[in-house]
């Protein structure tokens, strides 16, 4: 447990409001190293329940790295070391007692490139519930699959071909299938790593609409290169630069009255 006293008592250079009233994830003084190289420098931020927060910043600024720290996907990289504390519901996720399997069941992830399993649409969605034992019967599993596909707005398009390969769908459909796969295990938080960067504008619009819908039930952290996208879908925005969290705040405020010079330069298109 992270003691309450020092949660909001943290030294940070970040401008803006890093705290939130109803924090789901609390990150304090997070440093990330790839071998000798420091990718993330002293980042502290709260992520609230049922909020959509976007991470923006130029390429290589560490926003994806930071995102992957939140569900410990960086564990798969041997040289990656994480310092500081990240807690989910006040429990340190890097604690030895925490099993990454349960953590990732709570924090789903959607990747940059749609990556459905080379299996049927049904199998793609059913895989998570199956390995976590979330359903005790075929009917329950069918129900989960149907609901997840409905929630991801894919049901009407695929209900007649659930047994056909997931990789046969279009790029946008594949990405929505990946979202359905993520929400099938009933997570609390969904991390999205540039989910629309490989998609055309129409597919992107669909996914954005979907993210807005999902924001009512889940906390969503989205990394994006598109500032318009960040402005359209997120309530809060965090600007990263060279591994540092420069500014955090209400999306409106960040895009209209950024306090920091670098943030202003980036959103007005002068760097990045």
């Amino acid at each position, binding site marked *: 447990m992270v003691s309450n006293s020092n949660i909001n008592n943290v030294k940070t250079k970040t401008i803006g409001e890093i705290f939130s009233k109803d924090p789901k994830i609390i990150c304090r003084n997070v440093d990330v190293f790839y071998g000798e190289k420091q990718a993330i420098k002293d980042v502290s931020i709260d992520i609230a329940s049922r909020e959509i927060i976007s991470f923006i910043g130029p390429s290589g600024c560490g926003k994806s790295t930071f995102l992957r720290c939140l569900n410990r996907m960086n564990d798969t990289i041997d040289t990656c070391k994480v310092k500081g504390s990240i807690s989910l519901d006040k429990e340190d996720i890097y604690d030895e007692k925490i099993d990454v399997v349960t953590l990732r069941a709570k924090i789903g992830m959607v990747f940059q490139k749609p990556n459905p399993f080379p299996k049927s649409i049904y199998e793609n969605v059913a895989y998570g519930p199956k390995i976590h034992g979330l359903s005790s019967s075929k009917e329950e599993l069918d129900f989960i699959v149907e609901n997840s596909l409905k929630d991801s707005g894919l049901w009407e398009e695929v209900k007649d071909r659930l047994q056909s390969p997931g990789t046969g769908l279009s790029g946008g459909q594949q990405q929505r299938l990946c979202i359905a796969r993520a929400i*099938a295990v009933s997570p609390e938080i969904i991390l999205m790593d540039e989910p629309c960067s490989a998609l055309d504008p129409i597919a992107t619009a669909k996914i954005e609409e979907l993210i807005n819908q999902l924001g009512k039930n889940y906390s969503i952290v989205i990394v994006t290169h598109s500032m318009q996208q960040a402005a359209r879908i997120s309530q809060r925005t965090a600007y990263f630069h060279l591994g540092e969290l420069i500014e955090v705040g209400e999306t409106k405020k960040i895009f209209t009255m950024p306090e920091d010079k670098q943030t202003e330069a980036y959103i007005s298109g002068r760097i990045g």
Partner: protein
Amino acid sequence: MNKNNSKMLTADEASKIVASSVIRRRKKNARLKTYGRIAIGLAVSFLIFLFVSIFSKGIPGFFQYYVTLDVFLDRDRLDPKGDLSPESLYNGDARSIVLESLYKVIKPKGRKEKKAAKKIISSNADVRISKMVLDDPNILGKIIPITFAVDDDIDSFLRGYIKRETPSSERRINDKVIKFVDKLSAENKISYKFSDYILTGSASRSPEIAGIKGAFIGSMLTLAVCFIIAFPLGVATAVYLEEFAPKNKITEIIEVNINNLAAVPSVVFGILGLAIFIGIFGMPRSIPLLGGMVLALMTLPTIIISSRAAIRAVPPSIKDAAYGIGASKLQTIFHHVLPLAMPGMLTGTIIGMAQALGETAPLLMIGMVAFIVDIPGGVTDPGTVLPVQIFMWADFAERMFIQKTSSAIIVLLVFLILMNAAAVILRKKLERRW
């Protein structure tokens, strides 16, 4: 950008220079293409030469000369005890019955001519009669036509390898025998047909009845043992090295050594097997179990290397996807990585097994070169394998073994081609194109 103060070329100048170099570059391309074609042409012509040579020698090896005789199956002589038991038949005098029917045709005069006549029919003739009687006792007491393989020297003579013009003293068969063979030919008693022995017989010193069945079964058993040991071990090693092993000095040393092992001459594995399996564990020699174990040692590096390559080729995005929804490492490997890597791993394994199938040297070391007539019934029965059989036959002096050697090579090649075809089909079948 322009440190040495030279001017940038204009677009015109640049395109002229490019145009002048294009011809040179095109010529280089054409030259490389020609070299490639020459190399492939050479390789193909060698292959054709090999096939023509082996098939022209080997195909006749599948056929042999037979002599058909009307044999009176005398009950008293064939079955002295009268109970039709194998021992009784074994004790019977089938040989004299065969010779009697032969004499009826060629009518030899005197002891010397009879001695010569005895050389015509394969020594296996009596076994053949005993078997026929055992299969169907009703034929006893009747006169029926039976075909017998002719002796290998007669076979070689009929094929023209032993020439009539050669002086009698330098021939393996004398004038009297030739006279009898001519007589048999004249009476239409001699026929040339598909051999009863090459595919179903086992090792023998008499080439006319030698076959590859024993060696074939030995090869199958050895390969089965080899696969059962090498495939799981190899895949497990590959999975560990790719997915679990920490990247440190020890892992590196292990990796380098596995790669080196793949290049170690196979005979060294034979010596290792001799020293460890026979020397220390005291396993019996010449058995397919031991052969399979030695070949497994030899194939392991191949399987490990190809399995690792196959595992590495699985897109990381699939692994990310599995980890992302909370699959454990084991689930990720078994549900996603292994199914996707399986075609590659199987291909590598089959190539390794094909290599093992053709291996001779390590098996010589562990005594699989023994002359074994019995067909092995299990992995612990002494036996030999196809390449060793080929090696042994190539060493024998009799003319007929030259054809038999090529025939055995054809069988081995067909076996190999079938295995490779299986690899291709498996890969096509298991490969998920979606």
